[in-house]
């Protein structure tokens, strides 16, 4: 290379410096741009993801609304909302529960920056209540008269039974004493509460007590509510051991979780054995529950409200501690006593397995077992190997009835008395007044109805459940008395095991407003209906036919007939299609 060429190439220094500087400059610029673009991308995703979540949440509310408009709604696709779209998919979990799944896309499903799926279950209120007997009566007893008066099913009475024809078993338990021997139930709204069954250290509740009389234990009642779905709990009566629960007296009963609701109500625990407890001696009653932080019980309580004992919290078979605060007493009532009951007259049973069982049975024709302590005029002699039967709790608790009322009380109530004389569809609805259906009108029930006054059905009028009830039962709750006459008709939804139930909380004829009317009087008519009057009397006369009866006292006369349906052992009460689908707490989830 000649020197000339070397010197010539030195002239290119400026170009070299420019190139190096440019490369350096572009490297820095590209690093910055990448950083900015990543940041923008992340921020865009965060904003889009937040938008997607809110669109999906909007979608799930929209889906619930659509479901309440049309119970057959299964979802839809590409619904626009704000900056994105959502798809809804609804699948059945069971007859009263659906899974709603909503997936949202921002800005659209084919080219989305962010997507979210929100799922939750929705349910329409559904209660399972067992009717084990065709007729279940309280301490008022069950009285049949008139030829042809018949129960196709079993009868259980916590009082006496006067029989005509009973095709199944008839059991008359000894009468409970209606007076509480010990109680702690004031003020009406508890000032305090005791939570138990939630953790192992507060698994069980115990309350000490002393009886004023040496009578047999009958039942205890607790003012209790539940959170979640706790299991049944065992109620035990124990001896005292140094001011804590001690050894067992052998008396146990079951606190049925299905009778406890999410709001306070008195729940009765029937104790199956009836030994005599000593007056003035300290005993403990322990509610022996499970331990689950989301499924537990809460007992109403007050501070030092009960002078003959105290409440404790702890574990049966383990240690016990004072409540917090330490002076709490649980809300409870103890019923003592129980007089002997009898069954008289009639033809009872159709097979050799059917049971006739009471302390005293007289003048009965029995096909199967006859358990009694004394008897006369029967076709068999008494088998006295079994002790007298114990009273059974009625199918509905106060809490169950309150839930029915709450379902009905959505929306504006109808104020004043209502007279229905043309075909009407209704429910859920509360009516602050009396309701009368006349002139052959048909009331189609689409949701639970609550009538605060009296209810009458006359002139061949009909009450039927809407077809959307499916195989479920529907409820009309009445605070006053009910009179059904003049060929009143009742129909379910059209499917098997679906019946309307009339539930009255009235204690007629004992109250002054009753004017000697029974809580329910059914005079002539027919149909698939269940009648419940746990505080009052029911009288059935003349050609009536119905499905199930539970009342404090039942009188059937004049050839009326009850045909029990085995399906009632597991009755599903629905709030109806008019009832609202609501989200089920604890089933909400979000995913990307």
């Amino acid at each position, binding site marked *: 290379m000649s020197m000339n060429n070397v*010197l010539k190439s030195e002239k290119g220094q400026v170009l070299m410096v420019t190139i190096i*500087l440019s490369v350096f400059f572009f490297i*820095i610029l590209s690093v910055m741009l990448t950083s900015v673009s990543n940041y923008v991308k992340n*921020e865009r995703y965060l904003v889009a993801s937040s938008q997607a979540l809110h669109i999906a949440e909007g979608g799930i509310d929209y889906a619930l609304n659509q479901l309440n408009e049309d119970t057959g709604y299964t979802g839809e696709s590409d619904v626009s909302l704000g900056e994105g779209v959502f798809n809804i998919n609804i699948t059945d979990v069971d007859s009263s529960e659906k899974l709603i799944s909503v997936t949202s896309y921002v800005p659209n499903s084919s080219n989305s920056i962010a997507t979210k799926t929100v799922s939750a279950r929705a349910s329409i209120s559904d209660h399972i209540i067992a009717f084990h007997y065709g007729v279940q009566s309280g301490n008022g007893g069950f009285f049949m008269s008139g030829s042809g008066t018949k129960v196709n099913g079993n009868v259980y009475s916590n009082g006496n039974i006067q029989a005509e024809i009973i095709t199944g078993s008839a059991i008359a338990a000894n009468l409970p004493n209606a007076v509480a021997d010990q109680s702690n139930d004031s003020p009406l709204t508890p000032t305090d509460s005791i939570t138990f069954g939630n953790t192992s250290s507060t698994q069980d509740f115990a309350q000490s007590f002393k009886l004023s009389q040496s009578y047999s234990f009958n039942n205890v009642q607790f003012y209790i509510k539940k959170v979640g779905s706790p299991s049944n709990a065992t109620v035990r009566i124990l001896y005292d051991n140094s001011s804590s629960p001690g050894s067992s007296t052998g008396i146990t009963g079951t606190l049925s979780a299905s009778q406890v609701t999410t709001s306070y109500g008195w729940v009765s625990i029937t104790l199956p054995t009836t030994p005599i407890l000593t007056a003035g001696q300290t005993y403990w009653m322990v509610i022996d529950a499970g331990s689950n932080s*989301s499924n537990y019980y809460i007992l109403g309580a007050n501070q030092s409200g009960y002078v003959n004992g105290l409440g404790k919290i702890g574990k049966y078979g383990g240690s016990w501690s004072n409540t917090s605060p330490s002076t709490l007493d649980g809300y409870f009532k103890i019923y003592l006593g129980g007089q002997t009951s009898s069954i008289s007259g009639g033809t009872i049973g159709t097979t050799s397995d059917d049971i006739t069982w009471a302390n005293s049975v007289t003048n009965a024709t029995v096909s199967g077992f006859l358990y009694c302590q004394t008897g006369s005029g029967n076709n068999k002699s008494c088998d006295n190997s079994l002790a007298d039967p114990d009273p059974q709790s009625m199918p509905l608790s106060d809490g169950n009835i309150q839930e029915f009322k709450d379902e009905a009380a959505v929306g504006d109530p109808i104020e004043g008395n209502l007279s229905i004389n043309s075909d009407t569809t209704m429910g859920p609805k509360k009516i602050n007044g009396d309701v009368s259906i006349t002139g052959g009108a048909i009331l189609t029930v689409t949701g639970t109805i609550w009538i605060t006054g009296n209810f009458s059905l006359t002139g061949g009028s009909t009450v039927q459940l809407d077809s959307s009830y499916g195989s479920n039962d529907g409820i009309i709750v009445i605070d006053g008395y009910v009179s059904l006459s003049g060929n009143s008709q009742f129909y379910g939804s059209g499917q098997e095991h679906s019946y309307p139930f009339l539930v009255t909380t009235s204690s007629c004829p004992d109250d002054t407003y009753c004017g000697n009317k029974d809580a329910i009087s059914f005079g002539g008519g027919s149909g698939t209906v269940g009648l419940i009057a746990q505080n009052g009397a029911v009288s059935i006369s003349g050609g009536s036919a119905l499905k199930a009866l539970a009342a404090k006292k039942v009188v059937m006369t004049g050839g009326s007939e009850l045909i029990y349906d085995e399906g009632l052992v597991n009755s599903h009460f629905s709030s109806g299609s008019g009832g609202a689908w609501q989200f089920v*707490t604890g089933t*909400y*989830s*979000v995913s990307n």
Partner: protein
Amino acid sequence: MELKKLTKGITLIELLIGLAIFAILILFLANFFVSYYDSFNNLQASNSVSESTGIFINSISNAIRQADSIVSSRVFSGTTYTSNSTTIVLEIPSIDASSNVILGTYDHMVFYLDSSNIYWLVDSNASSSRKSGYQLIASNISSLSFTYDDPIVTSATKVDITITAQKLVKGKTFQSSLTQQVYLRNK
């Protein structure tokens, strides 16, 4: 000779002028790069604090939203975490592979502040499709507060979250604060 001719060309004046121009150019470029570098660092600091708070708020909102209760305390791998103003322990219904809730089974999560970092612990039920694990979710945190709508945290149904991330770059403070209110949808 040709070589002699070529070495003769630059006078002292020319050299000084040349050097002066070059010095000005270098000074200008250096200044340019320094300010470029500063703004790059500032941008990165500002992005990192806002990303830190954004990702944290997004994750914790998602978790609280799905929780069925706030747990007062829980032991994770031998350490007890207690819900308070800088730690939250959540009980969340477990989910299956389709992200639907498995009734009666629960996963647990903890978000807690440890000096200037926030960690996220997940303790899943064996049947849950959520993965158990432990991760650093946000750093440069100068303050975090959880406020519950009930003095008994296990009864709370709503949580207010306030977070501030802060980063100091060459004496300059970059800060990002976010506040979010979340309801427990499963309570």
